[in-house]
């Protein structure tokens, strides 16, 4: 049974505190909320998917990081975890899944195959998912250990925390999406 000492709270962000009030930037609060409730969309195609199963199962328990709810619908997910080789036949589907996700959306490329094609430098394999969709975090390994996947998620949390609320409407971001032909 958990005691109150087992429950870890996030640190209070920087702000002004007084009697009965606490003031901070909206960005920080939104970032904090988003970072600690990232809903993953596991896009598992091969070996790394099995390691992700281990990550979400009891031993490693990704739920500890606020990613309790596996969202198998792209519409209600924040974090696309691409795990495994993406063949060229699969690339349009991956792209479609990404397009279906609503903003804000983040992508983690888990494993060597998703990051760069890995050992499969062949006619049928896409050499890294960043050819078709933008990627925020790359997790190396073939396959990565669950600890590494968790590390990737925690680094994404850092990214999410520090992201400006307006980033998604910035011209740089629009340009990035335009370079992938995603509107």
């Amino acid at each position, binding site marked *: 049974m958990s005691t109150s000492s087992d429950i870890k709270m996030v640190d209070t962000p920087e702000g002004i505190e007084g009697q009965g009030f606490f003031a901070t930037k909206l960005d920080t609060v939104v970032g904090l909320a988003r970072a600690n409730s990232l809903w993953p969309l596991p896009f598992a195609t*091969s070996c790394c998917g099995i*390691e992700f199963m281990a990550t979400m199962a009891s031993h490693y328990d990704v739920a500890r990081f606020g990613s309790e709810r596996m969202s198998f619908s792209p519409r209600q997910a924040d974090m696309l975890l691409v795990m495994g080789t993406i*063949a060229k*036949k699969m690339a349009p589907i991956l792209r479609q899944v990404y397009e279906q996700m609503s903003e804000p959306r983040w992508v983690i490329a888990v494993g060597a195959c998703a990051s760069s094609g890995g*050992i499969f430098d062949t006619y*049928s394999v896409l050499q890294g998912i960043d050819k078709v969709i933008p990627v925020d975090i790359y997790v190396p390994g073939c396959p990565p*250990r669950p600890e590494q996947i968790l590390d990737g998620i925690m680094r994404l949390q850092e990214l999410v925390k520090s992201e400006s609320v307006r980033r998604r409407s910035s011209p740089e971001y629009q340009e990035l999406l335009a370079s992938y032909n995603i509107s």
Partner: protein
Amino acid sequence: MSDLLLPPEHRYAKMIEQRQNEDGSELSILNLGPTHPATHGIFQNILLMDGERILDGEGTVGYIHRAFEKIAENRPFYQITPLTDRMNYCSAPINNMGWWMTLEKALDIEVPKRVQYMRVIIMELARIADHIICNSVLGVDTGALTGFLYVFQYREKIYEIYEEICGARLTTNMGRIGGFERDWSPAAFRKINEFLDEFPKIWGEFESLLTRNRIFMDRTIDVGPISAEKAMSYGFTGPNLRAAGIDYDIRVMKPYSSYEDFEFDVPVGKSGDTYDRFCVRNAEVWESLKIIRQAVDKMPEGPFHANVPDYYLPPKEEVYNNMEALIYHFKIVMGEVPVPKTEVYHAVEGGNGELGFYLITDGSRTPYRLHFRRPCFIYYQAFNDMVRGQMLSDAIATLSSLNVIAGELDA
């Protein structure tokens, strides 16, 4: 996204047009996959549905085609294991050992008894790991997440044993031509013994959660059945064939790696339905535990690799101090170890059935042709036959119980 819709000339389009139900309802098409959460891997099934009932289905595979066979033609023989690892990644060591045995058959290498026993242990552990995934995920698909969370804890223990032996968890790249890269540490044996002591209780509890569970039985009995004749014609092997009532097991038919030294039963089912497949896999885990126990108890002393300096890397201290060893080391590392011209087919009992390696060599440093007989690929084509006339939810359970591994399916 019009290009993702069914083309108008597709035969289903015509069937929808022709068929009018009495109550005015129409047939519809359901796209199951390629990224459906219930398909555990990526393959597409276009299902023609009449309400909830499946009239017909058409499978599309190849979404994770990685060209193993082409890569294999460009790799030295000892660099094939990274590929076999990633073929059936749920039971990578079986694939690795199968490949080494194929190569040893081509080179006529006798391996020591100790190596054979070690291989048996590692292959049976891999089989348990494979069956844990399949059966626990079948539980998840029929609505019972408990079993999955419970047994995955113990799957980690198997990974820990792998780690102790070779350093990796999933894609083990284990073994060398003629044996293992190093002898197993006492810690490895200790971990295996611990696993053998602890796991039976866990597996017993897992079984008792599902085997006589009324909901689970209702969801799986008579779901996705296949007759023995049909299964045979479709090229079924492994647990799925045994569930249909044929006791075909390569470990018994043509024992490799000293399987003849061990006492074990081959569990068979009767009707070839989802429940039987589940039960056969469950029973196989018990048999595997029995085999591992015997192998650990009877483990002979001796070298952990065959004496084949042409193919087996010499120890590092000899490489630095001994001219001959240095030459061998150089030749092997550079991949200049030609295999005489020959053809071999070797099959092992993989997690899903007969895992065959058909190797043609032409005397050069790479295989001329290497074909993998991938059990998943061959039996998955029966899926549409098995679910025809069933409910959609039954199709999910059937698919899950077939244990189709995308990596193995698509090569």
